[in-house]
């Protein structure tokens, strides 16, 4: 069965500093990978996704993620965070037997931004 691990429950970063959120997945084939963000009052929004092709994917709000098959990782990065980036971030893997009909989410990483 597929699974996603986000090892960091909570990360605190200074505004303007760089950010990397870790995500490791377990899946037998080439996965469909996603990062979603949940902000208070904003619902759950897709940041970026990887289906195939270039392993470095760009998303909204200046985020990017890199798929590394050898490490079973899909870490999320941003060069300079803004206070508005404070939110809960979820990595997810889609089951390619179904397509991404079945998303398995990680437990999330809560990002706090300090001035």
């Amino acid at each position, binding site marked *: 069965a597929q699974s996603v691990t986000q090892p960091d429950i909570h990360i605190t970063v200074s505004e303007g500093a760089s950010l990397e959120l870790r995500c490791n997945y377990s899946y037998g084939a080439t996965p*469909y990978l996603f990062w*979603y963000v949940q902000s208070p009052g904003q*619902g*759950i929004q897709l940041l970026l996704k990887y289906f195939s092709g270039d392993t470095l994917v760009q998303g909204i709000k200046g985020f990017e993620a890199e798929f590394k098959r050898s490490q079973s990782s899909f870490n999320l990065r941003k060069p300079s965070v803004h206070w508005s980036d404070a939110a809960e971030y979820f990595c997810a893997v889609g089951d390619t037997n179904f*397509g*991404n*009909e079945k*998303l398995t989410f990680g*437990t*999330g990483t809560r990002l706090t931004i300090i001035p």
Partner: protein
Amino acid sequence: DTAVSQTPKYLVTQMGNDKSIKCEQNLGHDTMYWYKQDSKKFLKIMFSYNNKELIINETVPNRFSPKSPDKAHLNLHINSLELGDSAVYFCASSQVRGSGSTDTQYFGPGTRLTVL
């Protein structure tokens, strides 16, 4: 212009009651989902429907019954509510891609259910 909408946004009820949550999407998608987010923010899929047909049923108690009257709607009815049902329930939708797989899921704003 809301893409995926849910009603109500908040639902407070007593144990043993029956309640429904409604979901509608205006994106023209053919697949809809229900997710449950618990108090630790863990998101887990409950059901998915494709063209009104149940595709995924993730070992959810049969007190939970989804109903899809058409492609744009997926409602969730819960019988005999229990304390453990308290959570945020999210509806989502997506579109089957040409390869048979589906594309990005778009989420509704969530319904916070509190069972007293």
